[in-house]
């Protein structure tokens, strides 16, 4: 039995896949008899200059012992938790500070050519290379995350796909008349594309959005689009829902829309597959494309409203196709360790520094 700390980073009042990952990992470790706790530190992205302060906060904490117990291993997840120091540090990388990496130069980054921004970008890249590079074991939650790490920091790592948070509880249901979107509500998730595509979609089809906003002004923007296109009866924001409700929503939707820009991994994709639903995604959706194949398990479309609208209509007009794609996805996911049995290998790799 080892004393293990999982290091999480939390934007207060929001919840995303990383939080599910930390709590699932903690439960699985406890089931295997380890003494586990999750350490979360808050972060805010409203002032980019403060990012170094957050990193140095992690760096300044002595993780060697708490409450008379020697900490045997820390498992860091996302930026900047991996700045924590420990003789045995495992990293299961969710993502780095993406605006300084692959999002740099896009509308999803707030870093410009300002010398202050360049200093920050360089500091983060060098700091990450050093802090991640010093770990005893390095892994990431998808091929996409590991490829970025190699490309931008020159660091190799292993891919450990996180198993589904609700295990075998996903249900199969009817093909309903709504599209489901699950996840944090922010620009990079591109829910606006689906909202703006709705006028093209058959008018008896609606959109249900599960998740909470975590960007200033995003709901005003969405509501403006809804007003503009008279979509008041066709878009429903459900906020956070409990597990049972979520399982029902997945089970009875027409399809799941999940087309973020260059996503790291995306639990939503796998949850849709586990519920036997086709996934509508985009050609530039990153990690999602490690699982969704066009016309096999979903539709991989251009990230435009036209393309997405017509894609949804294809499924509305051909429910057999929707069912078939969903069925293919279900068959696929059932055969992977993400659906069952995956935690053993994940945990054995994350705990490997303890064998040294």
């Amino acid at each position, binding site marked *: 039995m080892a004393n293990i700390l999982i290091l999480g980073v939390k934007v207060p009042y929001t919840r995303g896949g990383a939080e599910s990952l930390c709590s699932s990992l903690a439960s699985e470790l406890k089931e295997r008899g380890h003494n586990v706790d999750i350490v979360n530190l808050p972060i805010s992205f409203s002032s980019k*200059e403060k990012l170094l302060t957050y990193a140095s906060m992690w760096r300044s904490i002595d993780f060697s012992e708490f409450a008379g117990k020697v900490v045997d291993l820390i498992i860091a997840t996302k930026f900047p938790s991996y700045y924590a120091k420990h003789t045995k540090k495992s990293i299961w990388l969710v993502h780095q500070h993406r605006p300084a990496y692959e999002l740099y130069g896009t509308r999803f980054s707030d870093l410009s050519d300002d010398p202050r921004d*360049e200093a920050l970008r360089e500091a983060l890249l060098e700091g990450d290379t050093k802090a991640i590079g010093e770990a005893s074991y390095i892994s990431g939650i998808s091929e996409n995350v590991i490829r970025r790490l190699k490309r931008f920091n020159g660091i190799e790592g292993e891919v450990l796909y996180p198993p589904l948070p609700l295990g075998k509880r996903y249900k199969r249901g009817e093909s309903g008349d709504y599209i489901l979107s699950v996840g944090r509500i922010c620009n990079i998730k591109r829910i606006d594309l689906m909202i703006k595509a709705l006028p093209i979609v058959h008018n008896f089809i609606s959109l249900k959005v599960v998740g909470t906003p975590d960007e200033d002004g995003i709901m005003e923007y969405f509501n403006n689009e809804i007003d503009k296109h008279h979509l008041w009866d066709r878009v429903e924001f459900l906020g956070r829902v409990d597990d049972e409700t979520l399982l029902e929503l997945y089970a009875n939707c027409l399809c799941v829309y999940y087309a973020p820009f260059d996503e790291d991994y995306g639990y939503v994709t796998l949850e849709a597959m586990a519920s036997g639903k086709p996934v509508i995604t985009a050609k530039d959706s990153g990690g999602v494309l490690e699982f969704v194949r066009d016309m096999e398990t979903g539709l991989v479309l251009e990230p435009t409203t036209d393309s997405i609208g017509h894609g949804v209509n294809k499924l509305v007009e051909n429910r057999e196709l929707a069912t078939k794609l969903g069925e293919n996805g279900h068959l696929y996911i059932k055969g992977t360790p993400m659906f069952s049995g995956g935690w053993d290998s994940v945990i054995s790799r994350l705990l490997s520094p303890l064998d040294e």
Partner: protein
Amino acid sequence: MRVAWFSLLNPKDKPTDSLSAYFTDEVFPSLKDLIDIDFFVSDENSYPYKTYSFLRAFEMHRKRPYDIFFYQVEDKKECDFIRMHLGVRPGIVLYHDLFFKSDPPPPLTFSIWQDVLEAYLAQAEIRFPAKKPQDFSDPFALREASLALVPLFSSTRLCGEFRRRVLKYLGRDLPIPNIFYLPHPVSYRPEQENAIGTLKAAFCGSTELEGRAHKVLPAIKKEGFNLIWMIKRSEKEKAEDLLREFGVSDVDLITGKSPARWREVVSKASVAIHTHFSAYGGLGPYPYISLSQGVPIVTCDFAEGESLPDDIAIKINPGRYEGSQLSQALESIKCRREFFEGPYRKIARDYIEEFHQSSLIADELLKVFNSKQDPAKRALYKWEEILKQGREYLFKKASENPLCDIISGSQDKDLGIASVWSSQIGEFAGICLTGSEIDI
């Protein structure tokens, strides 16, 4: 000499219509043994050269400094990363465009480049504005043009625009005031010539208004030429509409526009038409490739076309009489076939050999690199002062922490943790902001 080369590149076996990718392919064979070039890109395509992510350029520069940062700028979204980096470490810039159709990448609309440039030129402190309003004011690449330490241009028209607009904007001399015209490079690779005895017109204008297809197609039909039309893949539908509209049926429509492809295409023609007319874009290397294949060209008496010698180009004026002038030009090709299929070929090829030969252009670029290496290095060194100011600002901000304030306050001084906290900040900043190897 070490050069950091920022450019679009042609993926392996997939030529594109990028002018900077074409330029690179043409000059690299002559440069590769003379200078040490590292290519920086923003994507993960497979290229014929070893490439690095542009985000790591600063790190590679710190470990083993580059003598020159070389950028190629053109009006393409894919060039955004080059435009971004140009403001971070200026260098020698080859402009293929000075007007941009698309908006800059969003972070650049908040750029404080004017303040930075002003501080650089005056060797003064940057007046960092608290918040910069978003700026979409001008499609003209004023920022990119002003930030060049040595500006090079692939068209004579751009040199003029630069003189008129950028120098006027700055109201003073540029850091290195020389500007150079570096013509499009063309390597003469003879293709099979089967144009003799045929009436085939090759055309690579876009389907947009500035491509002038609406003037070219009626003239081609009227004069009884067969058409070979090379377009971008995305233009296929529109091209087919235009062909239907003007009743042109004998057409070889070639999709996938690129200079490399044009070389094959144009060698099959008895005339090449290059009549682009717009503030945006230009003729590119296409007319020069046509000439290198000995094919007579019809071009606009405008911009780059204007500077071509009259004995190798038939020039027309855009506008009201454009259609009839095009017809006349095609008529003259038919009437003077002996000349165009005989002596003209040598005149055209000699011209290209004298002014556009790839090895010659590579040599010119090398001369620029050699002669401007020291001033460019000095300018880059001076620019490091600008970056240092950014680091100092950041370090100061990172140290402004509520906890720091509390522990440095008089009532908490005896807690004794102030120094620990400060050392953590200092340690972190030490690693990240100076790149020094502190053992953490």
